[in-house]
């Protein structure tokens, strides 16, 4: 970090005495604009004199050295941006230094309780940070629902029968957003469609949303953006946390986690999530469940080992989910021919093992080596009426990264090697009225890669240049360059620019799983090529005072251009769905602006507007992509009582009109209402805190907006015209939930 970012106050300039220099001072950690706290365990040393000290619990240090030339004092602590100060010889100084935390430092995020969502000012990329406080504003339930009070990521139902939700960023399907936990990429292939439900909301300590192409160090797949989530860490977790949740939809949920410091080196944490829906709801009386019944069980155990020069983490996560939707009365595990009911069954079993090891060096305090490991075994068994998919995936990932500085901390270099192995076995069987096909889609990807990323930090700007080269066993060399630039216009205003390439190997089966909820056959072209995109973006942020309190206004614009894409064409014919390579143009242009301010003390308003122009060439014509609204707005009111014991939240989201697929009705006419209505979604929640626990009561879709008959031909679900893919909003209407959280401190 540069001198402008440190608070360096020379309190006392002593006198020169002989050849000795004495440096002492205190090191603090930045909390917010007003507060700091002493930083314990920071390493302070003189670069040339090779003398150093470690700050004590009051943040104090002192160094005596026989220096006789100008020397550089280096201050470094794990999880913080390092800093340097130039020390003239023959001077005794007393320094006060504030270190700024890196964005994934969970301790700091937890301290900044009052700021639940914010753009990370120091990050060269446009990164929005959501904390537990923000996630608790909408108490339900898993990762796909964590973005309810956020305008960057849009969540909608994937189809009318599976109950699964999909996310969109920049109007592009969630598959173009790279997902990672603690900087480990995950949710590939089989997890694509339903994996978001395997991350319980209460396990997450924070989420970082990066708009535009992310860092090259974690792979080539972030095209529209990158979402990173941090689970609770073993060395910073409640001893016991209990959350129970119930809703009038018949959903019951129990979340537990806890952990402890085993000794001064080891700490561990465990997590349990159980959820169940046992009540059949059919409010619109179309004979179909408004949401599937199901059971979920997810477990995780993780360990952390930390010494002065070595950090290690290892963990395992097991998730089992079994959902059953479709016609009322359907049971997947009973004889199908005697039932004669259209059913949707989704069974997803996932075992993940992950580890991290980090090495620091005593002689070279600015360098480190980090190795990340990830393995998963995933099994997916899906039934949609007379279509089924059985798939297994084995994935392994290793990433080794070396981090160092070039000369001083203004120049940082990360470089490393990565290796991906992904083995996919998929069998999709269609027994449709017009088509009987068995598709075997097996693939093994082996991708070794090399990457490097250089960061220059100047007094007012940061430049990040990154590139990676990967050798894909099926698609040869892939070169992925990316660049970021941040410039501070003033102390309170900055702009960011980003440009980068994204690459992704599509999987027409799991990318389009929700299209199994129709009986139209899929025509899949041969030689599907991987998807390649370029993303360019600019964003602007202004921190200012409004009503004498802090306010933030941001605006950004992003352009994503596809060189190739797996295009789903429903315009060519209403008798089938074609999937093939892009032939023509495909792009997304998105403008978004957000404002956040406090008109009254403890009362915060957040509002956002987003304009989306997302088009792709289908049937030879450049037309709007299906199910993407052109306008999207959002306003959130949050009030906290003076004693912090009552929290009120109210959120109104508006989704503008979207283009819907034109499909043929059973009587042979085409649908005419091929544009959706404008959908308002109002949700609210009240939380009351007691000494050791808190209770909450909330409602979703309070305006009771619902689609009456979104499924076509519910009478004959096995016929050729049955279609449940035109669902763009809730079928159920108002939902009310309540729950409690109990925790025994750290």
């Amino acid at each position: 970090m540069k001198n402008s970012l440190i608070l360096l106050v020379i309190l006392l300039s002593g006198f020169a005495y002989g050849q000795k220099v004495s440096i002492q001072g205190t090191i603090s950690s930045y909390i917010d604009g007003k507060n700091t706290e002493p930083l314990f365990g920071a390493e302070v040393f003189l670069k040339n004199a090779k003398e150093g000290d470690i700050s004590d619990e009051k943040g104090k240090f002192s160094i005596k050295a026989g220096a006789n030339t100008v020397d550089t004092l280096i201050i470094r602590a794990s999880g913080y941006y390092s800093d340097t100060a130039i020390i003239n010889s023959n001077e005794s100084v007393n320094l006060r230094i504030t270190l700024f935390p890196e964005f994934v430092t969970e301790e700091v995020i937890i301290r900044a309780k009052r700021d639940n969502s914010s753009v990370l000012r120091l990050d060269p990329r446009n990164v929005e940070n959501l904390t537990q406080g923000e996630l608790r504003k909408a108490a339900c339930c898993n990762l796909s629902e964590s973005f309810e009070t956020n305008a960057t990521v849009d969540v909608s139902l994937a189809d009318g029968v599976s109950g699964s939700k999909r996310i969109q960023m920049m109007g592009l399907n969630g598959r173009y957003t790279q997902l990672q936990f603690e900087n480990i990429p995950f949710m590939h292939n089989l997890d694509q469609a339903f994996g978001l439900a395997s991350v319980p909301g209460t396990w997450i300590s924070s989420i970082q949303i990066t708009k535009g192409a992310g860092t090259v160090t974690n792979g080539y797949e972030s095209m529209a953006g990158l979402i990173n989530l941090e689970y609770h860490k073993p060395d910073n977790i409640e001893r016991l946390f209990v959350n129970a949740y119930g809703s009038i939809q018949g959903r019951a949920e129990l979340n537990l986690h806890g952990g402890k410091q085993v000794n001064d080196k080891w700490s561990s944490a465990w997590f349990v999530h159980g959820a169940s829906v046992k009540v059949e709801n059919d409010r619109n009386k179309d004979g179909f469940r408004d949401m599937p019944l199901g059971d979920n069980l997810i477990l995780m155990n993780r360990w952390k080992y930390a010494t002065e020069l070595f950090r290690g983490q290892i963990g395992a996560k097991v998730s089992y989910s079994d959902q059953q939707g479709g016609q009322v009365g359907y049971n997947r595990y009973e004889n199908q021919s005697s039932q004669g009911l259209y059913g949707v069954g989704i069974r997803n079993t996932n075992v993940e093992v992950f580890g991290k090891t980090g090495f620091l060096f005593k002689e070279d305090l600015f360098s480190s080596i980090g190795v990340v490991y990830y393995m998963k075994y995933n099994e997916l068994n899906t039934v949609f009426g007379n279509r089924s998919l059985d798939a297994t995936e084995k994935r392994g990932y290793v990433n080794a990264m070396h981090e160092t500085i070039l000369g001083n901390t203004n120049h940082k270099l990360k470089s490393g090697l990565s290796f991906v192995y992904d083995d996919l076995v998929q069998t999709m069987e269609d027994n449709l009225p017009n088509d009987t096909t068995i598709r075997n889609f097996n693939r093994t990807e082996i991708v070794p890669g090399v990457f490097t990323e250089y960061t220059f930090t100047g007094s007012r700007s940061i430049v990040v240049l990154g590139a990676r080269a990967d050798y894909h066993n099926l698609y040869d060399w892939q070169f992925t360059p990316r660049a970021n630039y941040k410039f501070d216009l003033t102390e309170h205003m900055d702009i960011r620019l980003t440009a980068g390439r994204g690459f992704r190997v599509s999987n027409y089966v799991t990318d389009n799983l929700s299209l199994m909820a129709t009986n139209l056959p899929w025509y899949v072209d041969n030689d599907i090529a991987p998807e390649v995109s370029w993303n360019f973006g600019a964003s602007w942020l202004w921190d200012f005072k409004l009503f004498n309190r802090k306010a933030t206004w941001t605006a950004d614009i992003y352009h994503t251009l596809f060189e190739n894409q797996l295009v789903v064409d429903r315009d060519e014919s209403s008798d089938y769905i074609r999937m093939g390579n892009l032939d023509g143009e495909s792009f997304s242009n998105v403008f978004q602006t957000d404002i956040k301010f406090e008109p009254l003390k403890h009362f915060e308003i957040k509002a956002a507007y987003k304009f989306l122009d997302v088009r792709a060439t289908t049937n030879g014509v450049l037309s709007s992509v299906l199910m993407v609204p052109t306008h999207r707005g959002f306003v959130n009111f949050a009030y906290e009582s003076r004693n912090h014991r009552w929290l009120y939240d109210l959120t109104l989201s508006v989704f503008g009109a979207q283009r819907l697929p034109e499909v043929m009705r059973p009587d042979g006419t085409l649908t005419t209402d091929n544009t959706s209505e404008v959908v308002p979604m109002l949700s609210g929640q009240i939380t009351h805190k007691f000494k050791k626990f808190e209770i909450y009561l909330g409602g979703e879709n309070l305006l009771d907006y619902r689609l009456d008959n979104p499924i076509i031909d519910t009478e004959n679900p096995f016929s050729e015209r049955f279609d449940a893919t035109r669902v763009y909003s809730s079928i159920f209407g108002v939902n009310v939930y309540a729950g409690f959280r109990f925790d025994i401190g750290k």
Partner: protein
Amino acid sequence: MKNTIMIIVAVISLLTSCATSKSGETSKPTAFIQTNAQCGDCKERIEGVLNFETGIIYSNMDLDTKIVEVKYNTNKTSLETIRNTIAAIGYNADDVQAVQSAQSALPGCCQPGGHD
């Protein structure tokens, strides 16, 4: 859309009115207690305890002056009890000295002199 706005306005006014309806009664004075809190952590510790004590309506620590503002109900608690509560967390409260064992259990940054 008009209805939507009406509902929002109604709900907000309802929420804010519940939250503010408690002011203006004579048996609920506001006390200003001088402490030796130093940092955001201290503020959280003190408010975190006081806000959940019987009879305390709200508390707010001003770190610039180290004075904590406490609004309380005289029927349920007393100024003396509040001072003793603060002392039991490990901080001085006006003329009541911090409980030594609690003070030494505070993290280094919150101990007297932790920020000197």
